[in-house]
């Protein structure tokens, strides 16, 4: 799982029938200093995260274990909203 920030959303009306009702969040993965790390990605949001919130995501096959995502063509899902990060000084 990865930490990410919700930075936007995408709307796609024509979509695979298996994704009917899915909400697509644009998420920016975060690195070890909570900085932007890598390219923004699109995740199915299963927890109702809002823009600006820090979240964690699950990718690849395990994304289909997220709530409501069984047997759906999903490779990235937002599965938690992070209230707070506690990190050691470095």
């Amino acid at each position, binding site marked *: 799982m990865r930490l990410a920030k919700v*930075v*936007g*959303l*995408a*709307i*796609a*009306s*024509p*979509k*695979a*029938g*298996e*994704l009917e009702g899915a909400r*697509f969040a*644009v998420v920016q993965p975060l690195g070890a200093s909570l900085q932007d790390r890598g*390219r*923004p*990605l*699109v*995740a*199915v949001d299963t927890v109702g995260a809002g*823009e600006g919130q820090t979240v964690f995501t699950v990718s*690849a*096959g395990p*994304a*289909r274990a997220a709530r409501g995502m069984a*047997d*759906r*063509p*999903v*490779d*990235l899902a937002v599965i938690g909203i992070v209230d707070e990060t506690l990190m050691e000084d470095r």
Partner: protein
Amino acid sequence: MIIGRVIGRAVSTRKDEKLLGTKLLLVEEVDPRGAGSGDMAVVADHLGAGPGDVVLVAQGSAARFTAQTKEQPVDALVVGIVDMIRFDGRSTFTSADGFGSNGKGPQP
């Protein structure tokens, strides 16, 4: 999923028979402002996406979890044709206006 722009298609006559009738698009990964990454993939499409369309691409085993692809040897699939992207507090893409000419998206 990644965001991609359809930049072409691959025509293949001799291919795995499970792929007969499946359109294969050439898709460049782009960021939410439309900047190309330089990376390109061959992506199966059952939604009817065409050149210039911006699409959501599911990668890996996820590509096989639709009625049309469950038996197919595919690892990238168009799962949505994008109408709108909102990024960093503003609209950066609409299907009507594209990403805008400056690569920073339409004005708010």
